[in-house]
């Protein structure tokens, strides 16, 4: 898939090294294999040092693509994603990708070059205060002023990015620091303390769960991030408590499992939303009461107490008062809870669980729609079934993103890569690249729309250059579909600036980038089209024409509670 790495040049630690060389050697020492970036003037010393190193650098065609690819690589591999860019416009092009990682708590280290310290603050060519620009969207950031600090800063940055609640860390390196020679690099020793709650708090959580008659397990993206997937599944198996999932947690409980009611929230299932509204206890694990999940917050689960597990103390009680707040690493805390529960009497909420299993079947999504046109939900369901347990969907943002969440089947959380918190169009294509490099044997499919794909379509060149065998499904309704849908229902059908009917011929575009492509525009072509896509050995794009009138259902209107779902026929 990638060009073979050349052997690292031998170096002796006693000789002075440049800051740029220290960046590369520290990344190698930390086990970084893959990074994404785009060179430019202020980061040239580092690019000079990368040549001949063990690092596999993937040249993307836009820094935003590099940041999104690093983010997705981190989501799938569980490692820290790394991206690099030059100063000024290179650094500012990373911003959306950094914000994306921040909102979904993804461990990422972003290295930017900057102008030399002597001209900082002088409005030098390609100078931007990127540390200042990114302050609200990073977990932490550094401006490195001495080459000797580089190893310690990079090691600390990796530690911060992946520890506690993960997030992106920015390292800004002035050009003079990259050139500076040093023979006394400072190392660092970092402890890996695991934050575990007091046993008495776990006991309080257990008591609340045992007292509940109508409990719901509300699973967030933190379950995957903390490595608590098995602990969550054990809890669900042991207690029989019905489960709902946020968008970012899909796959934590495999699709179709007993007592799993699906996604809650604006485009969640009827059963999930109704069960939450009716519950008397929410057991929240690694979720943050995002407004897309809760609907009108003051009317969310109005009768429920809350037991909230989260590593971030500032999330507990932020939006919803809790009966029990369990702060700390989710995995050991949930394992401790499971151990306590297993020692006592079995939890029996079978009547409550049966009620929702029946309701879930009664209100299941309908895969049929009239007409001969392609019905995206049916296509996506068939795709995920045929792709099997190795399936990874790398989504863009919009209607198709919600259809993927609703209709695809996921056996693990790594199978569903989506821009949840930020909802950033353009994520799908670079996210597919990052996911495929993280798991080369997985069946990675980028699922994108005609709006989103155009925002990072240049990354088709990255796919082609490295011959990344990424499969791409482009669902084309010639509209900004989600905006069009909202205009239809909440803006009196005033379809302002959502017409994309002058899109290019995407098959020709893909072929121009060297990627085979074909079109699906009738329902009877779907099965064969999916087979062709999945059988391809190299990259391939399927351009799928869908009806612009198709909407995402159910829909909780803005300002309404999750019990007030609109439904449409298709």
């Amino acid at each position, binding site marked *: 898939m990638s060009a073979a790495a050349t052997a690292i040049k031998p170096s002796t630690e006693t000789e002075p090294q440049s800051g740029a060389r220290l960046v590369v050697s520290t990344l190698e020492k930390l086990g970084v294999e893959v990074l994404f970036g785009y060179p430019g003037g202020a980061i040239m010393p580092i690019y000079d040092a990368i040549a001949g190193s063990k690092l596999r650098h993937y040249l993307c065609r836009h820094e935003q693509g590099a940041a999104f690819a690093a983010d997705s690589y981190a989501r799938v591999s569980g490692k820290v994603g790394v991206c690099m860019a030059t100063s000024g416009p290179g650094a500012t092009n990373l911003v959306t990708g950094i914000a994306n990682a921040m909102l979904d708590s993804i461990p990422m280290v972003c290295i930017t070059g900057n102008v030399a310290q002597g001209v900082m603050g002088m409005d030098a060519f390609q100078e931007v205060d990127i540390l200042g620009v990114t302050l609200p969207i990073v977990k932490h950031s550094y401006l490195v*002023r001495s080459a000797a600090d580089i190893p310690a800063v990079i090691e600390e940055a990796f530690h911060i990015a992946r520890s506690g609640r993960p997030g992106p860390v920015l390292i800004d390196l002035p050009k003079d620091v990259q050139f500076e020679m040093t023979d006394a690099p400072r190392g660092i020793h970092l402890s890996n303390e695991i934050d575990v709650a007091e046993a008495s708090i776990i006991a309080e959580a257990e008591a609340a769960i045992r007292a509940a008659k109508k409990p719901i397990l509300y699973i967030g993206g933190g379950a995957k991030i903390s490595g608590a997937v098995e602990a969550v599944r054990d809890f669900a198996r042991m207690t029989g408590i019905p489960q709902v999932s946020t968008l970012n947690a899909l796959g934590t409980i495999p699709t179709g499992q007993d007592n799993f009611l699906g996604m809650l929230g604006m485009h969640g299932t009827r059963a999930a939303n109704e069960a939450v509204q009716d519950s008397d206890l929410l057991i929240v694990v690694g979720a943050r009461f995002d407004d897309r999940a809760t609907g009108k917050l003051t009317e969310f689960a109005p009768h429920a107490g809350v037991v909230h597990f989260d590593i971030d103390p*500032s999330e507990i009680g*932020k939006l919803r008062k809790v009966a029990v707040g369990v702060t700390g690493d989710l995995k050991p805390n949930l394992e401790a809870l499971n151990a306590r529960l297993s020692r006592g009497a079995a939890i029996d909420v079978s009547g409550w669980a049966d009620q929702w299993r029946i309701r879930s079947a009664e209100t299941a999504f309908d895969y049929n729609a009239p007409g001969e046109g392609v019905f995206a939900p049916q296509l996506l369901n068939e795709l995920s079934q045929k792709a099997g347990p190795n399936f990874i969907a790398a989504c863009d943002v919009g209607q198709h993103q919600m259809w993927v969440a609703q209709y695809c089947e996921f056996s693990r959380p790594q199978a569903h890569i989506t821009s949840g918190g930020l909802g950033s169009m353009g994520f799908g294509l670079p996210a597919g690249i990052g996911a495929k490099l993280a798991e080369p044997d997985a069946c990675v499919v980028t699922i994108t729309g005609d709006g989103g794909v155009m925002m990072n379509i240049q990354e088709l060149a990255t796919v082609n250059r490295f011959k990344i065998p990424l499969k791409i499904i482009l669902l084309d309704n010639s509209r900004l579909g989600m905006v069009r849908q909202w205009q239809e229902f909440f803006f009196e059908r005033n379809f302002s600036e959502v017409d994309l009917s002058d899109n290019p011929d995407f098959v020709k575009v893909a072929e121009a980038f060297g990627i085979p492509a074909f079109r699906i525009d009738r329902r009877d072509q779907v099965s064969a089209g999916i087979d062709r896509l999945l059988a391809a050995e190299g990259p391939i794009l399927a351009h799928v024409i869908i009806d612009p009138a198709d909407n995402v259902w159910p829909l909780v209107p803005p300002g309404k509670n999750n019990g007030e779902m609109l439904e449409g026929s298709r």
Partner: protein
Amino acid sequence: MSDTIHILIDRADGALQRLIGLVERRGFHIDAMDMASEGSALRIALTVRGRDAGRSITNLGQQIDRLVGARRVSNDAAFRFEAA
């Protein structure tokens, strides 16, 4: 109603900007600020007021405490920081 929050934070590039930005972004007005150097740290007392009733000073303290450079955070007027 205003509250005073006491912070000991590493003196580093962007530290003050990071702190002030967080406080304002989380929905608080800053009515007064007192700052002094203390070794490799800055000792800051911020008097803040929530923009609306939904803003919790406790939650703000937790969010400040989440900053990597924040060594100590307290809303206790009698609080004394350890030597930096």
